[in-house]
């Protein structure tokens, strides 16, 4: 199925395929070296505990990466993420399994400020949950081929 035929009959409420992500501390520890995000709560469990956490936890960029992946896995590689928004309600801790899910909330044809932003804007409400409950909510607007 091509990405355009997959999106021909989009409507609000349509669920995106969810996926599971094992939250390994070795991946979390990429934050300072790969993402230049040096907060010790991402690699030093004792530090994390000293500032009110139970363990190391994922940084914002990696969480956004999971939300974006939910949408681009579904929309196809030519889709353009126009906007993403994330609210962190509680940390995603090492040792948990995250479930990333979402559904379409609106579909609109929009003339954006650049060519890449112009086209069909599909808005997706997304969430990341672990055994601790919903940790992250987000909203992503992706521009898909018409």
């Amino acid at each position: 199925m091509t990405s355009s035929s997959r999106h021909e009959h989009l409507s609000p409420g349509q669920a995106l395929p969810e996926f599971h992500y094992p939250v390994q501390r070795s991946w979390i520890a990429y934050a300072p070296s790969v993402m230049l995000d040096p907060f010790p709560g991402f690699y030093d469990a004792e530090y994390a505990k000293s500032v009110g956490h139970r363990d190391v936890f994922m940084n914002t960029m990696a969480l956004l990466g999971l939300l974006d992946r939910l949408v681009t896995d579904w929309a196809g590689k030519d889709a353009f993420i126009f906007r993403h928004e994330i609210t962190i309600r509680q940390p995603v801790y090492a040792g948990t399994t995250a479930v990333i899910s979402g559904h379409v909330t609106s579909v609109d044809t929009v003339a954006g400020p650049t060519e890449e932003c112009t086209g069909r804007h599909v808005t997706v409400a997304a969430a990341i949950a672990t055994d601790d409950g919903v940790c992250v909510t987000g909203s992503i607007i992706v521009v898909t081929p018409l």
Partner: protein
Amino acid sequence: MSSAGKSSSTYSATVGSLEQGRAFIGRPQVAQRGALAVDAGLIRLFCASVQDANADYWSDDAAISPPALLYTWTFQLPWTPWAGNERLQALGVRVPLPGDQVANVRQSAEFYRRIRVGDRLTITETVLDISDEKHTALGDGFFVATEAQVQRQDGLLVARLHNTLLRYRSRPLT
């Protein structure tokens, strides 16, 4: 800084008064160029860490950056030969406030162009608002809202960012 137990790690947000912090509101800061050009190797490492198979991110030529890495391309390195350990932190961390600890709460970004390998990004940040003191599960503190514009090497606007950071003390404020 609060006790770090057995940890030897430190993280220093700038401590000061609420009045000192609020003096930053509405004052655009000096534009900062990111330390690294958009880099195919870092993109692959990031995609490996979130297990993202998007072919555009793994392309041998003309790879693009995942949008989630936007901040990375504006950050400074923890050490350089010319500045040593003097690293310019994100604005929400370096605004003086009573809270010495940080927790990111909310972030949004609007993108106008794809970010490509070799691009060099520059960020200009502004504090929009600093809340009154709030009670949170982590401790008492202040929410700092910032906005930023991110431009490419040719001056074109790549993205606008909004971020809300909690600046708190992990022990009760006195």
